[in-house]
Each structure stands twice: as structure tokens, then as C-alpha cells.
């Protein structure tokens, strides 16, 4: 347990080093937030003030909570393990007496523990002060929301871990990394909430784990789903987390068996 805590703390320090980058990220997330609010509110207004349960204020809440989660969830992707496979450093990692998946999981939670307050809360505050966001009235939304975010961050990690393992088979990971964001972003509900999707596309999205890592935590945090419904949403998230994490272990076992590291 101490190892995991140390790894998480180390990663927290590492990400808190680049202050200007944090500020720049907050600025970018805010600009995109204003663009997204403009687009979504325009659609809600055209629909007569309410669209799939979203009012103008609900749409704004959706967008700003999403902008707050963007960086902690690392939706833009991450290629640290793939990079280490390419350079051969992965051999050192595999020789260490800690589990590769669990140690990176701990580190990713440490990263999120810094990024969530540093990069997540400021854009949310910007949105709340300018456009306005609606807070949930039921107190249960808060603890369940925190839990849902925690599962979402873990699910996002498990997915990125699984994707990085592709580097054991393909030489050029950049193509896959580039495609990651453009595939998951629309399907997880980043641009338009999944609740607005036409039937076939919603079915397609729900067949993937992506809505569970973005749409679901926002639904729970904003109080769109409450009580038993919120627990059901959390349950689906947890099932996806277990499935993707186990898949990651399975693929890792196969990947390490075929690993050949050149030189020494």
C-alpha cells in the first residue's frame, strides 16, 4: 500500500512542476467551454428551451462539468508506456517487483489528484461565474458524484493502458494515439450529450465503455440521475472498469511473452 501511495505522490509532484502549462490548459479549456456552451445552448433554444431534458442552464452545467473532467480523465490520450516499449525501457519496468498495471494505475490517480483541482476546478469556476451552472439539490449527488468520477478516471486509465499495449505489436504508436481522441470524444458525449444522439448512434455509444467515463460521471454529479438510477449508472461504470482492466491484464500477459528487447 505504501508503494502505491509513494508512486501516486511522486506523480502528483511531477505534474505540479509546470505551472505555466497548467495556466495555459485552464485558458484553453475555458475558451473551448465557451464555444461548446454557445453551440449547445443554441440547439436548446431552437428546440424551445428544453432538449432531451437539458435546459439552457442544464446545458451549461453539462459543458462546464465536462471541461473540468477533460484533463483529469486525460481524454486527449497518453502514450508513456508505448514510448517505453519503443525505447526498450519497458524491460526495466517489467523486471521491477511491482505490477506494471497497478503501479501505473496508482500513478495515474496521483496525476488526477493534482489535475482535478488545478486544471478542472478553474474552468468550472469560470463557467459558473460567467454563464452560470446549476448545482444538484439532492445531497446524495455529491458523494455519488465523487465516486463516479473516481471510477471514470480509473476506467479511462484502464482503457489508455490497454491501448498502450498495442505498442508491443505495432512499431508506430502515433497513428493509434492520434485516432484515440477523435474516436472516443464524440462517442463519450464530449461534443453533444449522448442523450441527444439518434437511436442507432446512442446504441452504438452504449456498446462501448466511453459514455461510462464521461457522460455518466456528469449525469451523477449534476444530479440528472438520482438515488437508485444513480446507483445503476455507477454499476454499469464498475462493470466496464472490471471488463477493461481484466482485458488489460490478459493482453499484458500475452505482450510480455512475445517481448524481445534488443541490446542491453
Amino acid at each position, binding site marked *: 500500500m505504501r508503494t502505491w501511495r509513494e508512486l501516486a505522490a511522486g506523480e502528483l509532484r511531477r505534474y505540479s512542476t*509546470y505551472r*505555466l*502549462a497548467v*495556466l*495555459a*490548459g485552464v*485558458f*484553453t479549456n475555458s*475558451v*473551448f467551454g*465557451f*464555444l461548446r*456552451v*454557445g*453551440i449547445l445552448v*443554441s*440547439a436548446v433554444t*431552437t*428546440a424551445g428551451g428544453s*432538449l*432531451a431534458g437539458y435546459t439552457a442552464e442544464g446545458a451549461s452545467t453539462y459543458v462546464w462539468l465536462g471541461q473540468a473532467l477533460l484533463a483529469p480523465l486525460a481524454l486527449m490520450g497518453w502514450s508513456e508506456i508505448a514510448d517505453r516499449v519503443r525505447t526498450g525501457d519497458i524491460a526495466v519496468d517489467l523486471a521491477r517487483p511491482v505490477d506494471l498495471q497497478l503501479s501505473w494505475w496508482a500513478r495515474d490517480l496521483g496525476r488526477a489528484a493534482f489535475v482535478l483541482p488545478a486544471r478542472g476546478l478553474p474552468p468550472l469556476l469560470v463557467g459558473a461565474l460567467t454563464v452560470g451552472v446549476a448545482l444538484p439539490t439532492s445531497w446524495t449527488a455529491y458523494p455519488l458524484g465523487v465516486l463516479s468520477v473516481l471510477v471514470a478516471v480509473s476506467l479511462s486509465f484502464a482503457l489508455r493502458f490497454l491501448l498502450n499495449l498495442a505498442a508491443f505489436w505495432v512499431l508506430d504508436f502515433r*497513428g493509434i494515439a*492520434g*485516432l484515440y481522441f*477523435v*474516436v472516443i*470524444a*464524440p462517442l463519450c458525449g464530449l*461534443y*453533444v450529450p449522448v442523450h*441527444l*444522439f*439518434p437511436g442507432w*448512434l446512442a446504441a452504438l455509444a452504449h456498446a462501448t465503455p466511453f459514455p461510462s467515463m464521461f457522460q455518466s460521471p456528469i449525469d451523477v454529479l449534476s444530479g440528472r440521475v438520482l438515488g437508485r438510477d444513480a446507483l445503476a449508472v455507477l454499476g454499469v461504470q464498475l462493470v466496464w472498469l472490471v471488463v477493461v482492466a481484466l482485458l488489460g491484464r490478459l493482453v499484458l500477459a500475452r505482450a510480455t511473452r512475445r517481448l524481445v528487447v534488443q541490446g542491453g
Partner: protein
Amino acid sequence: MAEPTTARRPSVLHTYRVVLGSRVRAQLSYRVSFALTFLSAAGIGVIEFSEIYVLLSAVPVFGGLDLAQAALVFALANLGFALADLVFGQLDSIPTLLRLGQLEALLVRPVSVMGQLVTSDFQLRRLGRALVSVVLLAVVLPLVDVDWTPARVYLLLVTPLVGCAIYGAMFAVAGGVQFWLVDGAEFTSSFVYGGGYAGQVPGSVLPPVLRSVFTFVVPATLTGYAPALLLLGLPGPALLPAWLGWWAPLVAAWTWLLAALAWRSGVRHFTGAGG
């Protein structure tokens, strides 16, 4: 009589042609790999359009435009952005080059830094994204009601090139500013990629402040929305008169003047680390 021994120096243009030619040949020599990356780039274009499609399957009009009309705005702006990304997207790597101390190597060569960066990773696969917009244009143009005049044909042909110039200038400004920012690369992303995003939606949906920023500071709405309004014969919203679309080439020239200034002062500011 001996032949004059001074060999003629190859022209700069010739140098670029040779470099670009080798990049293109290199990429085409692995056919399967090229086809796959080309297809995935095209996939990016399709996925980007999905936002417009999803919104307009939920509501009948978006910013006063129906699906075909909004698709026209998207296709025009996206084609311009895809072309700019093809040529100038490489300028995004400047923070990495600065950090790794690789920029010095470019400075000592007798060709411009910009020229070297632009040709250093000319990725033909990015044409896949542009192709999606071309196909989308071909599909929606017969669907929208355009009263074709020579002026409108000219507008249709010139708009993607102007879009490429405007977004290209944004890449260049952002690149020039990196010499000061280094760690703050995301500041400029919000204007370059935010501009690309803002340009692809009907400008009327943007809140007034953003509408004026992305028209008069970063002229993104002139790459798709304003020309589309002119093609469709529609009036523009407040703060964004449609006739600005006719002036887009002039605006593009102006942005390039600013870009040249930002780029030159950025490169001059560079000191290096003595590597």
C-alpha cells in the same frame, strides 16, 4: 579555354522541390501503411462532422441553418483547416524542438527555418481529411439552394484557399509565440484549434463576444460561415455581416503580415542553449 569552374548554386525553390519530392516518395513506398494512415485521417474528418450531424438530428435548424446548409459551412471551413494542417501543422512541434535543442540545427542551414519545418514532415496522409470535406461539398452543393453567378463560383473556389491561408497564418503566429512561451503551448492551441472548431459551426450560434473574437481577431468565421451565407444569399447575424466573406482574401493577406512579424521576431528572439 577551360570551362568556368564555379558550380552554380541550386536555387532555393529547387532545394525545396527535391526535399518535398523525397518526402512524398518515402510515404508512398509503403503502400499498405499509407493507405491505412490515409483512411484514418479520413476517419477523423467523418468523426468531426458527426457533431453537426447529431445536433441537427435533434433539432431542425442550427444557428438558422438546416443540415445541408450547416454541412456546407463545415465542409468549407474544414477543407481550409485540413489544407493548412497539411502544410503548416508541423509548426506545432516547435516546443518539442526547443526543449530538445534541435532548432539550432535548422538555424545553421542556408534555407529558412519556416521552409525547413514545413517540408520536414509533409504528411500526405493528411489529405485524407481534406478529401472528406471535398466529398461532403460535392454531396451538399446540389442539396442547397444556390443562385449560381460567376462571382459565387469564384467564391466557392477561392474560399478553401483563403481558409488554408488564414489557418496557416494562425499556425505561424502560434509557432512564433512559442519562442517566448515554450511551456505555454496550449495558450496558442486555443486560438489555432479553437479557431478551427469555431470556424466549422454557423457563426450565429457563438455568443457575441466569441463571435467578434473569431471574426475580427482570429478570422475563423470567414473561412466557412460568411462565404456560405453569401452562397446561400442569407443575411449575417449581428457583428458578422455576410459581405465580410468577399473581403476574406484581404483579411488573409493581413493575417499573413502579422504572422510574418510574429514568426520573424520569434526566430530572432531565439538564443539557444549553446548546444
